[in-house]
């Protein structure tokens, strides 16, 4: 039976995109609540009613029409997925988890360190940014080698691995991975564009212009 429910988040949350894209593949019905009057980030997620359902007070948070509640973006994306997205075999499911965790542990921290100052939401620190760039290079080279002989990260079709890693890379590709920086990682960019052009990704992300000139920190 297809899942249906409400996804609470703030607008354009890359963490919420994972569940939204997964739902496009699985047919799960997601009602997005990301702005007033239905949801006000910082207020609604601190209310007693919200905390009763989602004790960590974090978004994204999902409440099924059957009352089932779950938080943590990867858990929500898993819940609204189908078997194919999750990995149909034990090996496939383990490899999906591997890349989902790789995105959270090896991509998100350096990507945020590099991109946030360019958005003006964090102080710029030259050393931290240079360190982040080298971490991003390392993660992209692992992905590039893996995608040398593959269309998608796990198996022959799109899975939660592709959805999670694409969403973790979004800000990088939009904001700072200018052509000269991404030149050594051609397999990753090919794979990234292949995913973006899938109708299920496009339905959620729309058109994603790749960075042409690396954004500098926004003083």
């Amino acid at each position: 039976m297809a899942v249906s429910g409400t996804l609470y988040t703030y607008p354009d949350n890359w963490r919420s995109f994972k569940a939204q894209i997964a739902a496009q593949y699985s047919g799960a019905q997601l009602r997005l609540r990301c702005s007033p009057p239905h949801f006000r980030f910082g207020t609604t997620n601190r209310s007693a009613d919200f905390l009763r359902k989602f004790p960590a007070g974090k978004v994204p948070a999902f409440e099924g029409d059957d009352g089932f509640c779950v938080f943590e973006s990867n858990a929500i994306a898993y819940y609204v997925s189908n078997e194919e997205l999750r990995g149909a075999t034990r090996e496939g499911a383990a490899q999906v988890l591997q890349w989902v965790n790789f995105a959270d542990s090896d991509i998100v921290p350096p990507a945020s360190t590099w991109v946030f100052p360019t958005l003006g939401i964090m102080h710029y620190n030259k050393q931290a940014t240079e360190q982040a760039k080298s971490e991003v290079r390392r993660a992209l080279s692992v992905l590039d080698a893996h995608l040398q002989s593959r269309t998608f990260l796990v198996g022959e079709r799109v899975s939660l691995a592709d959805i999670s890693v694409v969403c973790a890379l979004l800000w990088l590709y939009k904001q700072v991975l200018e052509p000269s920086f991404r030149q050594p990682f051609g397999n990753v960019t090919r794979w990234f564009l292949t995913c973006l052009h899938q109708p299920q990704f496009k339905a959620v992300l729309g058109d994603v212009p790749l960075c042409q000139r690396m954004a500098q920190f926004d003083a």
Partner: protein
Amino acid sequence: MAVDFLSNENIWFEKFKYDDAERRFYEQQVNG
């Protein structure tokens, strides 16, 4: 703007420092 919400994100910015410290600690242990 959606970007402002990002600043609320729970990100472990210092993760590489801790990974590095942990790696050095255990490499030293292994190498006595």
